[in-house]
């Protein structure tokens, strides 16, 4: 027999209950967001203003091969260093390594908040793929002083060397190999689409150290720290919308001692997988932030621009695009918060972070497309930022696992046998 509900309710009220649902913003996060905004205004904006059009005109700020110019690189460095000094840059890292140990929820909100600032260079305030991530927190012995600490202080930047030309999404099939020779490792292979590679001081490179047949598909991969004078940068992989950010990297008989192994031998793929959720939370946060900013811009435009004698916001072809965008952005935001909360509970959030990646990227993409359309020919004009955002959104649906790979993961995680 079921027991009437009254019993439960009264029992529950007398006991200590576990926390239920909340969408509040705790004081700490509130203060951080406010402080970030002030930091951008007072520290980042002057640097960006100094550079002016260099940061927004696609024919400026880059070498012919796409590489960022020295003056842009220096500006980015300065922003990062100031942010590290102020305690923002890698505040999600553990206190033990010099971070602030802020929660994933706070980190999500901070990333989203920055993406809503219409100040070039603001994206450098929080550590992105070039900054220290939990993988690097595994640093031991001399690695701490040489790599982890300078990365935390933004004095050095890094990169993750995983993607390869031949294998794409099928990364366990990588061809980069490190073989034992005496008490050293010899690393050979080629990576591509490596973010921050052209500017990094060192790269965290994934290489197969034990064959799949012995170690299994995901075993047998080790992460090595390789310094910039030990590898060659090949062609830049200039994605439209992210020119100069990625490049090919060549490793040609690079000899590395054991103290270059980050974490434990043969285990790097598992380590990396356990931090995957965090990367997706960052992507989701950025997508939602950009989306909300675009919707604000579109709303202003819809209220100002007139056609056929009316503000264009009066036409449902305009206002309903904004409304759908708001609905999808809000949904993406709540999914982002759920993912971040799960990470804070120590859950891997594999399904949820794939859902966030897919959902938020697609919401951003559709919103960016609609906001271009709302602005008409002005939406296409280079001097406005809308096509730039559309390019970024388009990239988001491919990098860090394409839409299709995310859907595969979601289906599997929910029990579809594939």
């Amino acid at each position, binding site marked *: 027999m079921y027991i009437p509900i009254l019993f439960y309710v009264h029992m529950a009220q007398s006991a200590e209950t576990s926390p239920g649902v909340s969408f509040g913003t705790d004081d700490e996060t509130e203060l951080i967001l406010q402080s970030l905004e002030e930091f951008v205004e007072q520290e980042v904006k002057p640097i960006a203003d100094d550079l002016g059009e260099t940061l927004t005109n696609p024919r400026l700020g880059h070498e012919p091969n796409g590489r960022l110019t020295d003056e842009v690189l220096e500006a980015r460095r300065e922003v990062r260093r100031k942010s590290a000094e102020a305690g923002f840059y890698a505040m999600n890292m553990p206190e033990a390594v010099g971070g602030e140990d802020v929660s994933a929820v706070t980190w999500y909100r901070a990333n989203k908040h920055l993406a809503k600032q219409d100040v070039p260079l603001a994206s450098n305030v929080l550590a992105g793929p070039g900054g220290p991530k939990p993988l690097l927190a595994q640093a031991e012995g001399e690695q701490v002083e040489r790599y982890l600490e300078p990365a935390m202080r933004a004095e050095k930047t890094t990169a993750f060397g995983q993607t390869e030309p031949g294998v794409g999404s099928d990364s366990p099939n990588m061809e980069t190999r490190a073989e034992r020779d005496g008490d050293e490792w010899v690393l050979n292979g080629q990576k591509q689409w490596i973010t921050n590679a052209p500017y990094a001081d060192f790269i965290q490179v994934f290489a197969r150290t034990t064959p799949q047949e012995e170690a299994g598909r995901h075993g047998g991969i080790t992460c090595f720290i390789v310094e910039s004078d030990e590898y060659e940068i090949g062609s830049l992989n200039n*994605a*439209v919308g992210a020119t100069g950010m990625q490049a090919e990297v060549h490793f040609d008989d690079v000899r590395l001692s054991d103290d270059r192994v980050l974490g434990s031998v043969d285990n790097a793929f598992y380590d990396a997988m356990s931090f995957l959720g965090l990367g997706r939370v960052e992507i989701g946060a950025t997508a939602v932030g950009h989306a909300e900013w675009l919707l604000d811009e579109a709303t202003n435009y819809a209220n100002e621009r007139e056609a056929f004698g009316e503000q264009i916001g009066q036409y449902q072809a305009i206002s309903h695009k904004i409304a759908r965008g708001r609905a999808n952005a809000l949904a993406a935001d709540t999914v982002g918060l759920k993912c971040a909360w799960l990470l804070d509970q120590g859950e891997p959030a594999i399904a949820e972070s794939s859902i966030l990646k897919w959902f938020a990227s697609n919401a951003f993409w559709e919103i960016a497309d609609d906001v271009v*359309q709302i602005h008409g020919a002005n939406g296409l004009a280079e001097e406005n930022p809308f096509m730039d955002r559309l390019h970024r959104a388009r990239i988001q649906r491919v990098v860090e696992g394409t839409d299709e790979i995310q859907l595969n993961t979601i289906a599997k995680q929910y029990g579809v046998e594939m």
Partner: protein
Amino acid sequence: MPVSETEVHDLIRRSVRELAAEYDADYWREHIDQKRFPGSYWQDLADNGWLGVAIDEEYGGEGMGMHEMTIVIEELSRAGGQGGIIFILTPVFGGISIQRHGTDVQKREYLPEIVDGNCRFCMGLTEPNAGTNTLSIETTAERDGDEFVIHGEKTFISSVETADEMLLVARTSELDPSDPTRGGTLFLVSDPAERDAISLSTLDTAVPWFEEQYRVNIDGLRVHEDDILGTEDDGFRLMFDTLNTERIAGAASALGDGLRAVDLAVEYANDREVFGQPIGAHQSVQHPLAESYAKLLAARQITYSAAAKWDRGEDCSMETNAAKLLSSQFSTEAASQAIQTHGGNGFTKEYEVYDLWQNARVTETVPVSNEMAKNHIAEHHLGLPRSY
């Protein structure tokens, strides 16, 4: 034995493809990067008769119609580069307008030159305060003896510096609410970039074209009444007729881009192997391409049907608006899917699909937004109330 229409069309397709195959991606890349007009390609089109495909034989053209021009544009565009869209200004705006509405003198003067590739046009229509609503243009032409004096500003005007002629739309009478399409006039302006009364500034647009876009300031330009195309005050009506062909030609270009995107994606999906098989074996890769291909072929049929109706002098505005709406939408979908098929490579210059997507995306907004096409269909073909 007379050759059937289908056979003629197949022949056109084949020979256009052969011509276009001579011009590779580097050729186009070079002209886009340097914003340089593709002169040798243009001359080749002229030499093979394609610029005059819809111009009467007595002026040196092929004497065919928009249906055939549509096929030419589609195939040039499917072959890559900017080969399709290049038709809009001269063979369409210049050629079609003069063929249909020019005086005998004008026809004899301009049409043979267009056929031979010696006369290129630009189009002075869009204004800062009159995007979608052509009737609200503010450029005025006032009569002074047998001349007109023109003042105003045009924007998003392509190729002014390289054009031999500008087809300029100006208002010659105040708006009459009882007959709103009256009061505009089309002027033929020679060597527009060299006129003292015309000043130009370039605009930046985020689209990979070989043409610059200009803002055009017109301050006291004098044009003789003999250079009116059609008749005074009747320019809007002529323009609306020509705008149908602009949209058909634009649809053909978008279709070619979309089909090219599918072609390139299929090729890549067959070559690229991940997880031990070509990525094209995955339904998440192949089904969207199959659907895009089916949609593009359907949009193509209605585009042909618009062109054929225009050639027969029938009202083609339903088919034209459907062609405009669907070809831009389906091509943009197809190109975005082609990027997705290419993964990271889809974002690089090496694999052309990103350029295709950028070009296709523009066609959802210009020459008229898809929302305006839907307004037109709803109001004029479904009989719903005006919504704007």
